[in-house]
Every structure is written in C-alpha cells, then in structure tokens.
C-alpha cells in the first residue's frame, strides 16, 4: 500500500520559506495572497498487507525520522487495501 504523509510546521513556528514564497508571489503580481506555509509531502510504498499494523509503523516512522516533532506535526493517509 501507499502512504501519503504531510508534515507541517506547528502553529506559531516561524516559517521563513513560507514567508519568502508569499513575498515572491506578491512580487510576481499575485494579489490577495495571505499566509503561506511550506511543509513536506512524503510518499512511502509499504509492502504491508495489514492496515492496522501499517498505521502503527507509519506512526513510528513519523515520530522517529520523518517529522521533527519539536516543531512539526504530521498526518497521513493510507491507500490500497
């Protein structure tokens, strides 16, 4: 199955990249652009067949490696099966 993981900065954590993107969009003439936040999107192919255990595994992957839980939140969707 395939996991689609979104990693986003927690509220209140400064996002220099998002800020720079917002400015750049403004400079390109896009108006009405408010806050921009940049995160990561990770797709992981899992050979699991059991959904519950795959979810557990994902949870651990996010906690241990994929997200920096001091400043980031994560969420995921599982697809297939």
């Amino acid at each position, binding site marked *: 199955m395939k996991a689609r993981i979104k990693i986003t900065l927690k*509220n*209140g*954590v*400064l996002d*220099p990249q998002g800020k*720079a993107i917002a400015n750049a969009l403004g400079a390109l003439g896009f108006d009405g652009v408010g806050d921009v936040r940049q995160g990561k999107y990770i797709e992981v192919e899992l050979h699991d067949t059991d959904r519950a255990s795959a979810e557990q595994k994902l949870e651990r992957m996010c906690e241990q490696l994929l997200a920096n839980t*001091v*400043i980031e939140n994560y969420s995921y969707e599982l697809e297939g099966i």
Partner: protein
Amino acid sequence: MTPELVSEHGLSAEEYEQVLSILGREPSITELGIFSVMWSEHCSYKSSKVWLKTLPTTGPQVICGPGENAGIVDIGDGQCAIFKMESHNHPSFIEPYQGAATGVGGIMRDVFTMGARPVANLNALRFGAPDHPKTRHLVSGVVAGIGGYGNCVGVPTVGGEVNFDPGYNGNILVNAMCVGLADTDRIFYSAARGVGLPVVYVGSKTGRDGIHGATMASAEFDDDSDEKRPTVQVGDPFTEKLLIEACLELMARDIIIAIQDMGAAGLTSSSVEMADKGGVGFDLDLNKVPCREEGMSAYEMMLSESQERMLIVLKPGSEDKARAIFQKWELDFAVVGVTTDTGRLIVTHNGHIEADMPVKALADSAPEYKRPWTLPEPPAVILPRDVAAPDSLTGTLETLMGSPHLCSRRWVWEQYDHMVMGDTLRRPGGDAAVVRVHGTTKGLAATCDVTPRYCAADPVEGGRQAVAEAWRNLTATGADPLAITDCMNFGNPERPEIMGQFVGCIEGMREAAEALQFPVVSGNVSLYNETKGAAIPPTPAIGGVGLIPDIAHMADISLKIEGETLLLLGAERGHLGQSLYMDVILEKREGAPPPVDLAAERKTGDLVRELIRDGSVSAVHDVSDGGLLVAVSEMALAGGVGAAMGEYDGPQPVHAMAFGEDQGRYIVASSRSGEIIARAKASGIPVRIIGETGGDTISVPGEEPVPLEKLRSLHEGWLPHYMTSR
C-alpha cells in the same frame, strides 16, 4: 501575584520583595515578566559578575572591553576587529538544527550591531559519549544547523573544536563565535543618549518564539495549549543576511545614535540596556511592533525571542532615510517609541499602560551574589615512570589518531562554507584559522580552545591552560595574539563545588591573560548545564584572536619539504596525568593536569613568532592533546611528507616523551636547525632535535614504520564512519 507565579518566573522571595520596593506596588504580569528576564542568570550574570570583574580587560590594543555587545581591538590602519562568543546549549539539545542555527545568527548580530562586517565564524562543540543514543542525532543536527545558517549568510566558518565526553550526555555545549571587521571611526554602541529620539524596530516580525515555559500559568494564555507557544526559535538566515546589509548601509549614513540587537529577552533587554546606558527613559507603543501572529499580549511581545530583529535609536528627522534602506532590503521597519527624560520604561498596549518601571533600578539593581564555593583538592602529580608503558608506540599512535578525541573533524568542517568571502588563507584543519583583512596584506587569526578534562581535575590549571593554548595556536600561525572572548559553561552555581570550578577557572584565566597580555574583551556565561544533578565538566571555552601584520610571513602545520630537521621547542617532562594516553589507552583519568609555566610560555611563543617572521621555519605546530607523536603525525598528514623520529636518550620513559602533554611546546620544521638551537639556547628555551622530515611513513626507532596512508585512513575514518553507522 501568587507566590507560585513569582517562583515560576524564577524570582526568589527576596528578589520579589525587591521588586515590590522598586515599584512601590505589585507588578503587573508584564512587569513581573520583565523583572524575571532582566534578573535571570542569563541577562544579569548575578552569580558570575563578581568573578568576571577580576579578569584583565585592558591593553593598548583594546578599544572596547566587556559590557558592550562584543569586544573591540585595534588592528591598525584605522580598522578594528570586533568579536564575541556565545552559548546556545539548551536550545541545541532540544532541537539541534535550529538551536545551533539561531546560536550562529545571534552571535553574528552581536558583532554587526557594533558596525562590523562579520568575516569569520567559529564553533566550539561538546557532545556526549559516542555510544550515547542521542549523540549521533545531536552531532548531525548541530553541524547541519551551524552550516545551514552561516553558509546562507555567506560568512565563512573557519574553525572550532569538537569533543565527545560522557559528561555532556545530558547537556551538550554549542558555543558560537563571530569575528567582524570595522572602521575604527564607525563603531556603534548601545547608549541611547538624548531625549525625544525615535526608537525604531527593524528586521523580522515578532512571534511567540522562546517565551519562557514558566510563564504559562497566567490566565491569558489558557486558550489552546503548547501548540501556540513553541519555545523553539527557528532561524531565518536569509533575513539575517538582508539585515546585515541593511544595517551596514544605514551605518554608512550618519543617522544612528544607538543600536542593539534583540537577543535573549528580546525587546525587554534591548530597550532597558539602551535606555540605561543612555541615561534616558523609553516610551514604547506595542501596537506599532510588527507581529507575526494575532492577538499577542504585551507580556508576549516584551519577552519574545524571535530572531533577526534589531532596535535602533535614530537622529530625529532621519526616519524616512532609514525606512527607505530597510524597504529596499524588504525588512520590517517601524517607529515603536521615543526616548524620554523620565528615566522610566513605559510600555503601552491597546491604550493601557502595561509596564511603568524605573530603568536604572531594573538594570542596576539586579541581584549580585557571591555564592559559596569550594575548590577541589588539587590531585597529586603522577610521575611518568608510574604510568604503564604500551606494547608499541606506533600502535598506540594509530589508536590515538583514530580515536574520537583526535580524529579529523573534516566531516564537520566540510559542511561549512569555509572559503566564502575569498579571504580564507588558512582553512580548518591546522592550528588557528587565518582570514585576510579584505583588501590588505594583513591577516586575522582565530581559534577556540579549552581542555575540559584538565579543568575538571584542577580548575585553576585548566583555566590557565585554556588561555595559554589559544595564545599558542595563534602564535603557531605567526600572529600576535590580541585578545580573547570566553564562553563559561558550567553546572549549577548554587552548588559550592560547581561555583568553585567557576572561581578556579577564572583565577587561572586571569593569571594567564595577565602574563600573556591577552586581555578578555567579551564573553558569555552559561550556568545550570546539568541534568538530574550531573553537571557538565567545567568548560571555559576561550576564543582567541590575533593579528598577522604581513601575510607573506605566516606559518601552517604541513610538512612540505623532505630532509628538514624537526625541532621541539619548550620544556619536556613527560607529563601523562590527565593525558589522552591515559584516557584512551589506559581508560582512566588520574592525576594533576600538566602545569603551565606562563613565563616560559611567553618566551617560547615569542621566539616561534620571530622564527616564522624571519622565514627560518617551513612548518609549525603546537603540541597539545595526544602529545608529540600525534602532533608530528598531524603535520605529516597535512603536508603529505612523512617523518622519522630520532632516538630519545633522556631520563624519561620513551612513552612519556611520545604521549606526554607538557604545555608550552611547539614543533618546527627547518633546514636551519643550528641557528634555531643557538637562538633558543640564548633565550633559555629548551630545544631538541626530534627527527627528520621525509618519506611516506612515520617511524620511531626500533618499530616498524607506519605508512601515512594508514594513519590517514584511521584519522579521517572515524567520524564519517561513526556518523553513517547505527
């Protein structure tokens, strides 16, 4: 105010009494927060001040000693070097990348706020034992964070130190140092002299970063939890780069009265310091402060530690000129207040006065403690013959060179842009780093040094040694040592034995700084580095800066020429107490650390500098951790030319001569050994021929030579291998 709230703000009952008597009433929550940060150990130096005052801080070269954002020394021709070192220990343990990154950003602001362009960064790093489960992650994050910030800003990171020791398992140390260059007639200070002047905020917007966890109790913060108040600050090096350029552009106009970065305790400490030094009051209107988040309270704005912000007091009427510069660099600019003759800090938000406090009392009446202290019993000196000999000198050499303590730090500094700005004359990997003073033929040398295991065994000797080693590393490049900055990292000062370490180290530093005329011009104190009662080893990191008057005459460590003589200058005693030989090979830490003879240190260093300047030597390296054979091997590896050690026929055991860590010694390579020996003897400096350069091995009499390539792979191998294994 409940006692809980007071104690959560880190104020003792007596300190709170003092607050009441200063204000003549109960403080508001914002005022309590302001007192709390101003009187914190970090801002007030309440445990350390009495001792710091004993350090020598003056000299003909010193333009500005401690007390400003950074120290300033004259380097001639109307230019000066501005530098400081600072800790970011705790944040780096919580979030290594951002903690280290913001440490680099903060120290650079201390330097450019005084009018300098940062030209060199250094970093002194202490991690826990390699086999501690957190170490690898911390090393990787801290190094990436330092690089991520410095590389982006475009200031070369040219030197530093890395240690691994179980004593740092629960408290790593990340000390960042920055050296800048300025014109002596364009130095900027923080005293806001004058009334009715605009107070201007520039840089990034203010968010809820770094607001102390202790202050969560008050009702206004009760809506949704932690999520809103990360204590971790995120660095924005791109904004820092713009801020440097904008500030330097503003400084080139004559419109700044005073300028100060917003470091720890942000708006609070910057405004109190500027007002206090200028003898004025500040009226601040927080509604003018650029905010990143909605609904920020006065308390949050005053205590926020958002990065990349500065506070500037301008000449009246110059706001538009200044605004234009910051707009060009796409940075926030806001007039947030005015200087007054009231002597009070008055903070208004939404039409309410949130704080109204006397500046002088806030700044000056911070408590000052002479905490009880005890010095450890100085350990007994262990004689060389009482330390077990190894089976083989070369085998021991191989082990040492490939150990975490002595292996190459290339894995670290290759992640740092150490060449940007086009003036790096001596890259990392030698003794001090050297950057050219841009557009001239002069050089600035810089180094970071301390040997915590010596400090732990004997704080006074350790303090002396740290200063002497920094002086030595500068000297080994041919520089005149100018001055030092320090970063005093210790445990809980309320424990007499920790306070004793502090007092002892300061005493040793004082003696060495005086004897070597190497004054302390800036520094930083980081206390309470302990977890569950386990304190870090005492770590007074010393940052040294020196001047090379003519870069045509400087040295490096690499052996370049075959058939030269290797000479050792300085006295040999074969001191093995607290040596790496004892630590790594015998797995114990015993005895007194090697003593530093400051008079001999001075004499030997002065001769080495002369030899470099008159072209008598082709390579120079001081002997430090690991001793003589290690130092020779480092020289051989750096230049790709081997060395054959001669027979030692002195009174000491051979292993003590090979691995002893006697202080005040240098190895030089030269084809003029007779002349050098004569000059050393004339000055009463011990000198001995220790070997000859050449070949592609390191050899010692009676043992199989070790190929350089074998040593190189051991030396270069450990760190990358460690970082990629799990």
